[in-house]
C-alpha cells in the first residue's frame, strides 16, 4: 500500500460518493459504504470534497479559510512555499489566497509532512475547499 494507491482509493471514493472504504489484503476483506439517501431531498448540487476525507487521525487537512485565488508562491517566478514531501512547522506559510487585491498568507497549524496539495496554483478556491493534507507523524 503506497500513496499512489491511497490516492486512487480517494479518487474512487470521491467519484462514487462513498463515505467509507475498508480493505484487508490477504485475508481478502472489503467493505464499502455509501451515504444513506436523504429521503425525498432533491439531489444536492455538485459534490463537494469538504469533510469527505479518510478517517486518518494523523492526517490534517488544511481548508481554505476564505474565498479567493490560491497561489503556491509569492510571485509567478518564485519557488513554491511548500511541495509534497516537504516538512513544515507550525506557522510556516503554506500558500497565499488573494481576495480583493489582498494577499492572505495561510500558515500551517501543525508540524508534519505535506502529503498532498489539492489545488493548482492560480485556481479560485471557495470557503472550506481542501488545500493541503499534512501528516503530523512521519509514515513508518
Amino acid at each position, binding site marked *: 500500500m503506497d500513496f499512489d494507491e491511497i490516492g486512487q482509493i480517494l479518487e474512487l471514493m470521491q467519484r462514487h460518493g462513498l463515505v467509507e472504504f475498508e480493505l484487508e489484503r490477504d485475508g481478502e476483506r472489503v467493505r464499502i459504504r455509501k451515504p444513506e439517501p436523504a429521503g425525498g431531498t432533491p439531489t444536492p448540487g455538485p459534490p*463537494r470534497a469538504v469533510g469527505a476525507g479518510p478517517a486518518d487521525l494523523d492526517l490534517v487537512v488544511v481548508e481554505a479559510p476564505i474565498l*479567493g485565488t490560491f497561489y503556491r508562491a509569492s510571485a509567478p517566478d518564485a519557488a513554491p512555499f511548500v511541495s509534497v514531501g516537504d516538512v513544515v512547522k507550525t506557522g510556516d506559510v503554506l500558500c497565499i489566497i488573494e*481576495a*480583493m487585491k489582498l494577499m492572505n498568507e495561510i500558515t500551517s497549524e501543525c508540524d508534519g509532512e505535506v502529503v498532498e496539495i489539492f489545488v493548482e496554483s492560480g485556481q479560485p478556491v471557495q*470557503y*472550506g475547499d481542501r488545500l493541503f493534507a499534512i501528516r503530523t507523524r512521519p509514515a513508518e
Partner: protein
Amino acid sequence: MLTKVLIANRGDIALRIVCACRELGLRTCVAHSQLDSDSMAVRFADEAVCIGPAASAQSYLSIPAILTAAAITGADALHPGYGFLSESASLAEACQAAGIVFIGPTPHVLHLLGDKARARGVMQAAGLQVVPGTESFDGPGEGTRLATALGFPVLIKATSGGGGRGLRVVRTARDLAHALGVARHEAVAAFGDPRLYLERYVDEARHIEFQVVADETRAVQLGDRECTLQRRHQKVLEEAPAVGLSETARRKLGELVVKAALEIGYRNAGTFEFLVDSDGEAYFIEANARIQVEHPVTEMVTGVDLVKEQIRVAAGDGLSVRQSDVQVTGHAIECRVNAEHPDTGRPAPGMIGAFTVPGGPGVRVDSYAHADCMVWPHYDALVAKVIAHGRDRGEAIARMRRALEMMVVEGVETTIPLHLRVLSDPDFLAGRFTTSFLERFLRPV
C-alpha cells in the same frame, strides 16, 4: 447588457432572483454560506460559490467575500435580495468601484434613505407629511430634552434601523432613560450605529405602503399594500390593495410618492411606508430601498414582475411599464409562514419532513423548502410565503384559508395556525384592525 448576476442572499429570495434571471436569459451564480450549499437556489443557479461559514457576519454580511465571489465568477451584476446587505451603501460603492452593476439604488440614495432621520426631512421637503419627530441624537441627555419637547408617547427609533429592530414605545417620562439605554444598545448591536431619533407614537394606526419602480427618467407607482398586521414590529400578513385607505388618499399619496422618488433620483424598486391614523391622515415614516418580502401581493394584483423590473433598470434597459399600464385587479394576501411557535413567536428551527404546497387557482407559494430540508437556526425563520389572489378580498381570504389548510409542513412548528385564526376573525374579515390587532393572538413566551 448584463450576462451573469451574482445573488448575494439565501432562502426564498435567492430562489426568486434565480427565477427572474432565468426569465431574462441571464446566467446566475449564488454566493452562499457553507450551511446553504445544498439549497434550492444553489441547485437551480448556473453556478454557486461558497463565500464563508454559517455565521452571516463572515458570509452574507461580508462585503469582501461577496465582491471576491463576483470577481472570481466573472459576474457583471449583483443582486442583494432583502435583509443582509440589501440597503448597504458600502456594498453599492464597492460594486461601483469594482465595475459591477449593483441591482439597487445609487450609493447616494442609499446613504440618504439609510439615515432614517434625515430621510424624514427630505420627504417632508418633497411634499410628504411626516409624524412629528426629531433629528438624530446620540446620548441620553439630548434624548430626554428632545422627548420632553416632542411630548409623550414617543417612539424611539434607530437612525440606521430597519426590520423593526431597535424600536421602543415610551409612554411616560419615567420610562424614558431606561428605554433610551436599551435602544442604543440594540442599535449598536444591530446596525453598528448608536444614533437614535424620536417620533410621536401614533396609537391605533394602520401601516400602509406604496410600491414604486423607477429608472433614470421615470417613476411608476404600482399601488399600495396593507401591512398593519405585525407582531413585535414584524410584518405577518400583508394585503394589496390596502383596506384602510380612501380612494382620495390613495390617489393623492400615489402622486406624492412618484414625485418624491423623482426628486431624490430614486432608481430601483422601492417602498414608501406610511402610518395612517384613525382620522385617515397618512404620515410618511420611512422608505425601503430594496425589494421587500411582501412584494408578491403587488405582483399578483398588477401582473408586474418587480424583480425583473429591478434588473432591467439596473441594466439600463429601463422600466417595462408605464403608469398608464398599471391596473390593480382583484385583491391579494400574503401570509408569512415562519418556523415559529404560532402562539409565542418563539423560533422553531429544525428538520422539515414532509412538505407539500397548495395549488389551484390564485395561489402562489415562494419557498426554498422541500421534503427533508433544514430550517437553520442561524438565519431568519421565514419558510414560505403563501400568496392568494381573488377577484375581491372575500375570495382572497377564502382562498388563503383553503391554501393554508392544504399546506403540509411536518417536523417544525409554523405560524400557519396563527394565520388561520386571523383569517377567521370577525374584525379581520370586516377590515377593522390597527397595528395592535395581533397582540391579542400573542401569548407570552
